C-alpha cells in the first residue's frame, strides 16, 4: 500500500515549502485531461456544426406570384405550391402565411364563411390573419410583399411584416 514515491514527494523538493511545486506526474495528468477535454468539446461543436445543413433543397422562400391584375379587389387567393394567401382589399395587397400557428398544418380559405380554417385542430382566422376560433396561439404572420421592377409581385416568406403594412398599387 505504501507508495515509496508519491507524486507530491518528488525528489529534490524541500519539505514544508510554502507553495509546493507540482509533481511531474500531476502536471502530465492535468495537461492530458485538459487536452482530452478540449478535444471532446471541439468534437462536439464540430459535430453539431456538421449536422446543421448549409444548403437546403427546399422551395425558395422568395418568389414571384404574378402581376397585381391577377388578383381581383376584395379577394383571398390561396397559392398551394407556396403555402400563402394573397389578400387584395380596396387598400392594396397583403400576403399571409397559410401555415397554422398552432402545429403547422396547412389552412384553407373558406369563401362561404369568409374565414381561413385549419383542418387539424379547428383554428379559424379572418382575412387579416386574426384568430377568431381554436387553439392557435398567434395570428397568421403577414409576409413581405413588394412590386418588382418587371411589374410582378414578390413575396418573401422569411420576412414577416406588421399587420398594418399594405402594398398599395
Amino acid at each position: 500500500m505504501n507508495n515509496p514515491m508519491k507524486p507530491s514527494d518528488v525528489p529534490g523538493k524541500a519539505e514544508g515549502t510554502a507553495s509546493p511545486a507540482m509533481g511531474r506526474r500531476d502536471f502530465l495528468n492535468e495537461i492530458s485531461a485538459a487536452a482530452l477535454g478540449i478535444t471532446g468539446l471541439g468534437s462536439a461543436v464540430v459535430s453539431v456544426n456538421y449536422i446543421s445543413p448549409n444548403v437546403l433543397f427546399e422551395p425558395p422562400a422568395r418568389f414571384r406570384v404574378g402581376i397585381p391584375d391577377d388578383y381581383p379587389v376584395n379577394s383571398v387567393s390561396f397559392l398551394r405550391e407556396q403555402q400563402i394567401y394573397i389578400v387584395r382589399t380596396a387598400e392594396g395587397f397583403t400576403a399571409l402565411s397559410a401555415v397554422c400557428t398552432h402545429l403547422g398544418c396547412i389552412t384553407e380559405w373558406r369563401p362561404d364563411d369568409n374565414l381561413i380554417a385549419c383542418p387539424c385542430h379547428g383554428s379559424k382566422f379572418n382575412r387579416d390573419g386574426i384568430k377568431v376560433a381554436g387553439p392557435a396561439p398567434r395570428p397568421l404572420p403577414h409576409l413581405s410583399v413588394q412590386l418588382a421592377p418587371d411589374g410582378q409581385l414578390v413575396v418573401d416568406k422569411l420576412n414577416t411584416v406588421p399587420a398594418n403594412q399594405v402594398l398599395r398599387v
Partner: protein
Amino acid sequence: MATSSAEALLERLRETKVWKSIFRRGPARTNRTRSVAIFHNLFLHFLPVKVREKSLRARATYYLGSLTFFLFLILTVTGILLMFYYHPAVPQAYQDMKDLRFVVSNGLFLRNLHRIGAQAMVLFVFMHMFHVFYRGGYRAPRQFNWVIGVGLLLVTLFLSYTGYLLPWDQLAYWAITVGTNIISFMPWLGRITRFLLLGGRTVGENALLRFYVLHCVVLPLAAIFLVGIHFWRIQKDGGLKLREDDERKDSLHDGD
C-alpha cells in the same frame, strides 16, 4: 437409447481440442462449475448465477420485462429484414412500403409484425412500468434501475416516433410536422432542435434520412446499451422485488 448415445457424442465432443478451446471449463455439474459457466460467457456474465425459485414464478413479474425484451428482438430481426427493401429517399420510400405490402414475398407479414410489434412493445413497456411502480420496485435500493427504465421508455417512444415517418404517407408526414412543431415550442432550444432534427425547415428528404438513421442505428444502439445496464442492475440491486406476502413466507423459512 437415443439420449445416452447423444450424451456419449457430447462427451466425446467435450474431449476434442476445438471444444476445449471454446469452453475452457468442464461440464456444468457442480454448483461451482455452473457458476463458472455463467461467469465465463460474454452473453450471460451480467445475469445472476443463482435466482430464487419464487422470482421465476409468473406472479413475481408476469414476465412483462422479458416480454418487452422479446418484442425488441422481434423488432430488430423484422426491422433488419425490412431494410433490405426500403430506400430512405423521397421518391422511393412510399413505393417501397407499398411493395413490401403487395409485391415482396411475406413482406406484408413482416411489415405488420414490425408495425404491430412496435405498438405492442410500447404497451408492454407501460404495463411493465405500472407493475414495477405498484409493487414498489422503484424504491431503494432499485432507484437507479428505475431511472434507467425511464430512459428506456423514452428510447422506446423515440423509436416509435422515428419509425412513424418512414412509410412516408400523409399520416406520417403530418404526424411529424405536428410533432416537431411541438418540439419547437420548447424554450430557447426549440427551434434549433427542430431544425437539426429535420435537417431543414420543413419535413422533407433530409428529415426522412435523419429519422431513418436515428431509427435504425442511433436509438437501437442506445436501447441495447441501456438494456445491458438494466439487466445487470437487477442482480446488483438484490434481485427482483417480490410481492410482500411471498417475501414474508421466504423470511419465515430462512429465519432460523
